[in-house]
């Protein structure tokens, strides 16, 4: 029982990272019907920029950094990566909106290779570690609940993820801009007739998605302490799986999909075999899609290539 609870908690923590990244995939897909394969690398870039900013703070301000400081750095990194997301959209995707479904995928893969190798050139091919000083901001408190151990860092991570996702949900559901975003994802032309600036909405999506991904990147960095330049492939693939699992294009679906995937993975690690956990995650995905071809919450049927 204790082990089951433990794996559930671990799974929810990892799942919240997947969910944050999956939101970027699903939002871009919602408005553009495009799989942004470079999104995983924007997440990885967030992890690196977080590390670099934190290091800069350590050198210039000293270890006097507080939780407030950490939050400020979160915002800076999210803004930086959001800026890169917008540039990426302008250069690599906007010229291809009318070119069919496959060319933007190649462009996205090219962008992914570019970002990965760019980071490798800037920060080296070896893995980097997050400074210990910043792990100290979140004290090493551990609670025992029903035989499972919950650490403060897990609670903080879950809280940040929940906060960001709730914020996004209310933004999309209850603001004018959010309504416009939903309208664009339903039908570009009709949205345009209603006076919505479709390109601005697309830009907004490429601002929010990468920002959330960057937050996920920093969280992974703080949680595991170790990052490397190919981090985006693995997490990106998982997050994309999560987005599909929940029904791609559906924002609550991506959140649920991420959490479910994280839990499946943790349970597979704890009760079956660590070496097979990714294979089991994919098998579950295949089974769910066989039973429900558009994912758990998805309704829209994707068009042909």
């Amino acid at each position: 029982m204790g082990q089951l609870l433990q794996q559930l908690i671990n799974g929810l923590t990892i799942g919240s990272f997947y969910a944050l990244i999956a939101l970027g995939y699903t939002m871009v897909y919602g408005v553009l019907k495009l799989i942004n394969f470079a999104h995983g690398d924007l997440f990885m870039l967030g992890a690196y920029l977080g590390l670099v900013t934190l290091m800069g703070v350590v050198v210039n301000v000293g270890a006097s950094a507080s939780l407030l400081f950490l939050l400020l750095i979160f915002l800076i990194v999210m803004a930086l990566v959001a800026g890169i997301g917008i540039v990426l959209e302008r250069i690599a995707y906007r010229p291809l909106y009318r070119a069919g479904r496959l060319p933007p995928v190649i462009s996205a893969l090219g962008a992914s290779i570019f970002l990965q190798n760019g980071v490798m050139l800037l920060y080296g091919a070896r893995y980097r570690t997050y400074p210990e000083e910043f792990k100290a901001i979140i004290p090493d408190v551990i609670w025992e609940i029903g035989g499972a151990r919950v650490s403060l860092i897990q609670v903080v991570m879950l809280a940040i993820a929940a906060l960001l996702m709730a914020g996004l949900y209310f933004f999309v559901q209850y603001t004018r801009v959010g309504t416009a975003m939903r309208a664009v994802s339903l039908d570009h032309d009709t949205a345009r007739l209603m006076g919505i600036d479709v390109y601005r909405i697309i830009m907004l999506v490429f601002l929010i998605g990468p920002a959330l991904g960057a937050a996920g990147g920093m969280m992974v960095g703080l949680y595991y302490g170790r990052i490397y330049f190919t981090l985006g492939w693995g997490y990106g693939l998982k997050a994309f799986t999560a987005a599909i699992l929940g029904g791609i294009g559906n924002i609550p679906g991506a959140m649920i999909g991420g959490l479910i995937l994280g839990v499946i993975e943790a349970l597979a690690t704890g009760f079956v075999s660590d070496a097979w956990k990714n294979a089991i995650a994919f098998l579950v995905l295949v089974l769910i899609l066989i039973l429900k071809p558009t994912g758990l919450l998805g309704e829209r049927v994707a068009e042909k290539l």
Partner: protein
Amino acid sequence: MDERYLYSALAALVILFPWIVRSVRWTQVANFFFVYALLGLSLNIILGYAGLFQLGHAAFYAVGAYTTAILSSRYDIPTFWLLPVAGLLSAVFAVLISRPILHLRGDYLCIVTIGFGEIVRIALRNDASSLVFLSKIPGLQFLEEKLTGLVITGGPNGIFGINRPAIFGFTFRQQWHYYYLFLAFVVFTVFAMRRLENSRLGRAWTCVREDELAAEAMGIDTVRVKLLAFAIGAAWAGVAGNLYASWVTVIAPESFSFWESVIMFCIVVLGGTGSIPGVLVGSIGMIVLPEILREVLSNIQQWRMLIFGAAMIAMMVFRPEGLWPSQRFRRELEIRD
């Protein structure tokens, strides 16, 4: 008339290539080009003709290569005999996994094929002995004894000691031996694909890709046609796997990663989806170009892949229809405009 001279010159260049470059390394690059051209042509059936979003083609390639490697290194079966076995097993595997997922559309199919690709790679890397956890299930305890220490795929180290291909007492050893072997296969495949493209089945694929509902209304059995696309594409990838295994004689799971599937996918789309010359041009772009960049940029070596990624974006932005699009696709684009 002019075109005929051009083609003869090109043919002469291709035939004499190993003797023109006089370099083992470039002959080797040419061999890689041939293997990926075969893989690209096989994926082109699934992705180009039938329009099925397949991003896990490395799985079929792996089945062909591992079939060859296991049977050749264990039972000493000549690798040429294993060509049909590798192709057939790949095709059977493809039919088995694609049948339950055929109803998925577009991007859902994409992630499932990626998933199968990863499952195959993980299975190859973990080997049979890692399945020992199955013996925890009541009634399967007997598996523990059988699975412990069982080696089939060789785990992360892979398999070595694969036989070299031999025919009439002649064994292929040098890079240029393989050059002509692979060239023959590519020429044959291009010929076969051209016939296939315009056959009844080929036209049925185009119909299914363009409008599945209309195709079904015209009496095309869409499930059968799509399964055939997977089966034939996989069989050909299996053949490429056999040739690859018997060429390098050592294979490991990392040669069949998601990245390989991405390369094959890019070869088809960069060249021009559904176009045979496009696949060849795409293979040059994805396989030969990075090698040329390695040579040209010898002093800024580390920038190579950065430039390559940027080049991929640029190629799509400036030529979204691909470098050498198929006539059929081009006509459709004109009609749409």
